């Protein structure tokens, strides 16, 4: 693979790397290691959640039924679609398409991410706040197993909140990459930043795919 001379793309090859390929490999590996840490991070939270769900199934099922499956399902579709557009963004740079195509796909991905957040914060969280289902801030559920329903909603807000935070960071990263793409930084020889960001985006998507059934689909739906 021909080496890119640093005077063709100044500032892209960092001085401590021997080649662009080595740099690309290192960055991809770095992102995979980072994703491993994220698995442990979410894993700890999910372990605690799973434990309490086993202990207090009835309460958790009741809490789960208070969530709107339709929004959760819609959001799942939105994120899956966004992973597709992200992959298309990476591919467009990889095969050397015009930067407008890349920016276009990144833009759609960001929009879908924003749509997820809008549904989550406006249609779901705000609705839960109005219904007094936010532990520690405004919780007034009066049915049976109230304490366990409260615990369920703790985990609901922690998990979806942490996920949303990661999504917001992801959108920020994509914004930066869009600016870089506009400045012509990506080409078929250099698109590692896009690929690495893509890995992160797909991971955030996969986390949601775990969260959706775990939170929304407890105890089935009648």
């Amino acid at each position: 693979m021909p080496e890119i001379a640093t005077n063709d793309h100044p500032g892209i090859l960092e001085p401590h790397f021997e080649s662009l390929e080595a740099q690309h490999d290192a960055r991809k590996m770095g992102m995979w290691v980072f994703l491993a840490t994220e698995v442990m991070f979410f894993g700890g939270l999910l372990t605690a959640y799973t434990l309490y769900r086993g202990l207090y199934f009835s309460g958790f099922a009741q809490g789960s039924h208070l969530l709107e499956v339709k929004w959760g399902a819609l959001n799942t579709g939105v994120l899956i679609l966004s992973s597709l557009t992200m992959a298309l963004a990476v591919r467009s740079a990889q095969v050397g398409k015009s930067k407008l195509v890349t920016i276009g796909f990144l833009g759609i991905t960001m929009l879908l991410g924003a749509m997820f957040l809008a549904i989550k914060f406006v249609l779901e969280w705000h609705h839960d706040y109005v219904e007094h289902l936010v532990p520690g801030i405004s919780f007034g559920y009066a049915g049976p197993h109230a304490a366990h329903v409260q615990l369920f909603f703790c985990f609901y807000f922690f998990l979806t909140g942490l996920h949303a935070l990661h999504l917001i960071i992801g959108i920020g990263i994509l914004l930066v990459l869009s600016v870089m793409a506009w400045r012509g930084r990506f080409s078929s020889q250099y698109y590692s930043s896009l690929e690495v960001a893509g890995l992160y985006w797909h991971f955030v998507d996969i986390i949601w795919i775990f969260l959706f059934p775990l939170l929304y689909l407890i105890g089935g739906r009648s």
Partner: protein
Amino acid sequence: MNGIATCVAGHFVAGLLFPLHPPTASTIARSVDNLYFALTGITLFFTFLIFGLIFYFMIKYRRRSEDEIPQDVKTSIPLEIVWTLIPTLICGFLFVWASRLYVKNSEPPKGSMEIFVIGKQWMWHLQHPEGAREIDELHVPVGVPVKLTMTSQDVIHDFYIPAFRIKKDVLPGRYSSIWFEATKTGEYTFYCAQYCGAEHSAMMGKVFVMTQSDYSKWLASQSNGNSMAQAGQKLFVSFGCATCHSQSNGGKYPALAGVYGNPIRLRDGRIVVADDAYLRNAIAKPGSQHVAGYASAMPSFQGQINEEQLLDLIAYIKSIGSQESQASIQ
């Protein structure tokens, strides 16, 4: 190397000046000490071996000239295997010894005398079933197995009696238990061994091991007429339990006579034994244990009944297995 020699010598001198172990005052203390001293022996052996070899090699192979380059020594795989296998075997041996001792010591003998312990910041409350209540003191007879059922009113504490070599964390919201059989009369200290806040270091007390006749006399002098079960019966009425849990309510709510120690089927299909923990949950967290066949209408008494009262109620429920006490429910 001087430091370690000093310390070992100091150890022996220290051993002459003060004891190497607490009083050996329970049936398990000697066997725990035996294991401990075997472990000490193994530790000292390997410590001396390694220090000795290091010292020996340091001197024998000290650098004699700046240009000295020693010959390579080829790694011997058999040697690697030997010094992997020997520690493994030693560890296996210790694991089996320690585990068997632990499992043997974990189960209280049948018919153990029961005493109830409540830890709270920063004191210990001990209740005898016959009614004696003590603060930071525990009177027990010698030669009788005693089972301690313990809980905490607030944070995690730990009940530790070094002379008996027993210890267990004491948790809020649940019961933990340990047992011992004292072998020597005397006074022994117990401590709180799980950090619990400001006065953690002051949360200690004394165990008074007495001869069995002295203990009976002491117990009689302590009684103010109310055994735990009798106190519990009074609470059963005053908290309104009798309103629902009586024969006259015709099966709408679970009858409690004879319930203690027997299996119960829950609504989700599980079968659990109605032990102390079950009864505690039934009063404090009734929602967590739906009994099959009944609507879940029992209110929770969490926060209204303290740990001492819970123990009294449980003592009462334990006592109503027999026909005589059933009459007293009406």
